[in-house]
């Protein structure tokens, strides 16, 4: 089976007068059927433009896009209309029609697709039931909370049973609790309805919570992409590491290390926790084997795609040679970072992570 979305060497320039800005720069991506694919990047990285290219809201400067075996590039606005009915789109600001009720909003794409009144009503009822807003059908958008508005947006995007749902910062205008509700709903859209989802976000926590694959964008380019767990456990680029640290909060910053120093005179190391290498069991077992005392002073372990990931920072107390041997043996299985003792100590110089 072919990919749901294929982007090949996609480029988009915006021109204003004599100024030209390259928003998307040579992006190639394959998004498989059934994926929840995250695209992450800082604002201005080109991710919103990228997602608008996929359904033709923006016209590519060069490159090709194929969605569900239908070419999107090189087509006129009129030719794109039927293709767009097969691609749902949800927005950060919801973009609901304020002059129509919740039911009217969900029915709008069905009117566009010329469904009969009876079929429309049945479909709207079914969709509102799915998103849990059956009791709000007659209300207007300005009577709803942000989370409810996005649920209407999702119901509306799903009305014509699209095979692909594009979500542009769908949770960025929501509070953390509502964000989780909406992400759970998107998860159900994927598992229960079999809809492939592309979600754009600047929050790594959205990606870690929902996605199975991710692409990291920086200055219009995809700098890193792959399985979410792989990217989290072995980020290659600084920009990716920064995003991951915002989602995990597990690695101490230099300021935190300095504060830890005041209370903990021993050697301080951060040990990566992975399902492939480092684990709590491994750590306890090695500490015992090398006769070193270790107390956990910082860190955390999160679950990504039902697999553990994170790091623990420990203060190690024991003979220097034992500690060196312990670190060496841990490094064979996971990454270990030893933090500098500072200028007044004679300890080993900064030892960087092994991976």
């Amino acid at each position, binding site marked *: 089976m072919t990919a749901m979305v294929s982007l090949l060497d996609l480029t988009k320039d915006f021109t204003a007068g004599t100024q030209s800005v390259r928003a998307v720069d040579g992006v190639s991506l394959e998004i498989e059927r059934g994926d929840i694919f995250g695209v992450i990047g800082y604002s201005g990285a080109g991710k919103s433009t990228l997602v608008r290219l996929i359904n033709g*809201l923006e016209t590519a400067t060069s490159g090709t896009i194929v969605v569900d075996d239908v070419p999107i590039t090189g087509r006129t606005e009129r030719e794109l*209309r039927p293709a767009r009915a097969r691609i749902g789109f949800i927005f950060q600001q919801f973009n609901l029609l304020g*002059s129509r009720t919740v039911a009217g909003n969900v029915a709008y794409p069905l009117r566009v697709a010329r469904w009969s009144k009876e079929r429309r009503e049945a479909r709207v009822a079914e969709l509102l039931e799915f998103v849990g807003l059956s009791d709000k059908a007659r209300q207007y958008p300005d009577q709803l909370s942000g989370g409810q508005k996005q649920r209407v947006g999702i119901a509306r995007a799903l009305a014509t049973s699209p095979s692909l749902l594009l979500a542009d910062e769908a949770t960025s205008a929501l509070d953390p609790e509502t964000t989780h509700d909406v992400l759970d709903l998107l998860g159900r859209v994927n598992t229960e309805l079999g809809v492939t989802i592309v979600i754009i976000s600047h929050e790594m926590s959205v990606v870690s919570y929902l996605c199975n694959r991710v692409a990291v964008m920086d200055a219009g380019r995809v700098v890193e992409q792959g399985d979410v767990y792989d990217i989290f456990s072995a980020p290659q680029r600084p920009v990716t590491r920064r995003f991951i640290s915002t989602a995990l909060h597990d690695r101490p910053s230099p300021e935190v290390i300095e504060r830890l120093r005041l209370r903990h005179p021993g050697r301080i190391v951060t040990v990566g926790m992975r399902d492939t290498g480092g684990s709590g069991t491994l750590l306890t077992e090695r500490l015992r084997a090398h006769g070193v005392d270790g107390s956990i002073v910082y860190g955390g372990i999160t679950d990504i795609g039902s697999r553990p990931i994170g790091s623990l920072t420990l203060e190690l107390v024991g003979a220097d040679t034992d500690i060196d041997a312990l670190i060496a043996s841990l490094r064979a299985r996971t990454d270990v970072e030893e933090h500098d003792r500072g200028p007044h100590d004679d300890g080993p110089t900064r030892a960087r992570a092994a991976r």
Partner: protein
Amino acid sequence: MNTGGENLWPLLLTAIGQTLQMVVATLVIGGLAGLVLGTLLYTTRPGNLLANRAVYTVLNLLVNIVRPIPFIIFITAVLPLTVQVTGSSYGTRAVVFPMAIMATFATSRIVEQNLVALDPGVIEAARAMGAGPLRIVWTVIVREALAPLILGYTFLFVAITDMSAMAGAVAGGGLGDFAIQYGYQRYNYAAMAITIAVIVVIVQFAQLLGNKLASRVLRR
């Protein structure tokens, strides 16, 4: 309110009828044409739904040329055209022609200004759902801006009533004509005062209706 033994009440009633006729005809013709022109101005703007710099520039220039012409001058300037179109140079029917043209241009700006305030996101959403431009104009752009448009048209009603008074100058009849002929030229201040009172009542009523309709659309 009699002048030289002449009973003016029937004349006043006729004048009210003529004014309403002029205002309603102008509002319908100029209002609809202005809605189309204003929507075109908004949608052909660079970056908008039917972006077309050439069309926008021409329309924008046209509106800017016609709108500043004082209406009293405009009526006389387009007189030959009025005769061509209506077959007459004077009277209520004839004067609706220049009024409708002026109202079209005035409406177009009011419509454009109200549409500019629209959230472009809802238009993008409609495009993403596969809606075509004509459908978007009617079911999204005009419908979403309906409440301010109603208030805009209420404002327009008042402006057209004002315009209709000047129509008296070319024997268009109506309340303006009545006030000048009987109130001003024959020093009948009672006639003048009553005419003003009638106009104030008509305008008040229109404003009340417009406000009611707009708040109903806004559900407030």
